[in-house]
């Protein structure tokens, strides 16, 4: 009975959900936004990376800008602008309503650098300014292979412009911003619906099992998102099995946590970018 029910659901799901499209070609992968400074090309020493991280954390305490730095070897076959906007869309630097993100990208082998400016900062750092920061403050140091110095002066410069005018602060400071990268892989909204269903069922079961101290029910809360997600994943999106499983599980846990912790939101979005900024060769 259960078997044929599952089968039936799978058939219906096949009829209803589309097949995810979209291939990546051989574009450069986007590194995980693991810290404010991601030096994938290894062009700075670890002390420099640490120092820069610290510097950015202190700047962000002021609340006007959020900064991300990426040093990568090459972005071929794309242009730096094409790669940079992809990174900005995944990293989502910046606070949601304020869109006050700045992305500094240095491409070591291609010898290009770019500052990607979030929507909210386009007023204080227009394209001309971004270009000036790059060409006047950063290029000389980049030319002589001192990316750390370049970034320090570039960031200082940018922050000066950004704090000259008050940037709209986000209204609810208590909102945590959690970016779940694999959420964006679930291209069809159909898959997202299914993930939500699995997550909600899983979350409820986790809570019931947890509070009712019922092991089996709690276990079911974990199993349903995993198994359900895996089925959908295997049936449609062979490359996205892990994404769907993780997303369902993550959502179940988030919901369980969210209800027990009692409020505060968990936003899964960040700052938006529109393609503004400047690029230079060095």
């Amino acid at each position, binding site marked *: 009975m259960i078997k044929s029910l599952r089968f039936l659901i799978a058939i219906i799901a096949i009829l*209803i959900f*589309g097949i995810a499209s979209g291939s990546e070609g051989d574009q450069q992968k986007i590194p995980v936004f693991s810290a404010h400074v991601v030096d994938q090309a290894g062009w700075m020493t670890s002390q420099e990376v640490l120092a820069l991280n610290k510097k950015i954390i202190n700047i962000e305490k002021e609340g006007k800008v959020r900064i991300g730095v990426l040093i990568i070897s090459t972005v071929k076959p794309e242009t730096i602008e094409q790669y940079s906007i992809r990174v900005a869309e995944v990293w989502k630097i910046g606070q949601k309503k304020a869109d006050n993100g700045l992305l500094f990208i240095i491409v070591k082998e291609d010898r290009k650098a770019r500052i990607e400016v979030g929507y909210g900062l386009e007023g204080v750092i227009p394209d001309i300014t*971004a270009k000036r920061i790059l060409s006047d403050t950063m290029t000389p140091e980049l030319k002589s292979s001192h990316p750390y110095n370049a970034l320090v002066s570039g960031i200082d410069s940018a922050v000066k412009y950004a704090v000259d005018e008050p940037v709209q602060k986000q209204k609810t400071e208590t909102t945590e911003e959690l970016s779940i990268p694999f959420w964006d892989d679930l291209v069809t909204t159909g898959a997202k619906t299914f993930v939500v269903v699995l997550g909600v069922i899983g979350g409820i079961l986790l809570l019931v099992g947890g509070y009712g101290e019922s092991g089996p029910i709690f276990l079911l809360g974990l199993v349903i998102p995993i198994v359900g997600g895996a089925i959908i994943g295997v049936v449609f999106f062979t490359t996205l099995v892990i994404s769907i499983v993780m997303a369902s599980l993550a959502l179940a846990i988030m919901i369980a946590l969210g209800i027990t912790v009692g409020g505060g939101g968990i936003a899964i979005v960040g700052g938006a970018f*529109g*393609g503004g900024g*400047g690029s230079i060769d060095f």
Partner: protein
Amino acid sequence: MKKLMIIVSLLLLPFLGGCGYNTMQSGDEGINAAWSEVLNQYQRRADLIPNLVNVVKGYAGHEKDTLMAVTEARASVGSIKATPELLNDPQAFAKFQVAQSGMTSALSRLMVVVEKYPDLKANQNFRDLQAQLEGTENRIAVARNRYIKAVQEYNVTVRSFPSNLTAAIFGMKTKPNFAVENEKAISTAPTVDFGGKK
């Protein structure tokens, strides 16, 4: 047995979302928003042109043909009313694309010609305008890409089973898309051609 059926029906309830109506509605709104952004950025580019032409004239006044081409392209772009309704009129949409591509080509040719004038290239006003132009072209590219993605998603929903049934019932059609993803790819003209007016 009854209980099971009720549970099953409840479980299947979210699948009603699969008929696609809500998806298409929000998709449509997304397209309108993306289209507005495209129009904004094209307008921003058009607004840069007068200053650009003035600065270039100061140093490269002899390059009348190239400058004229840019000014004419801007006039042609300005003559088309760029509104959201363009999306519903395929002919107007095509005209709009042609005019904007013409603008891109004229600007490319201007930038090639400018290479011959180092004084112009060193001029701070010109460099500022160049930075603005580059920024705007990038924003146009980003806006176009986002529009293209929004339209693709929407069109897939409109054409896929079973949401195409819903689309037919409510009279929703596929939306027009840009012919080329990156205008610059088709507009680079390495040689400047002064011969023959079009």
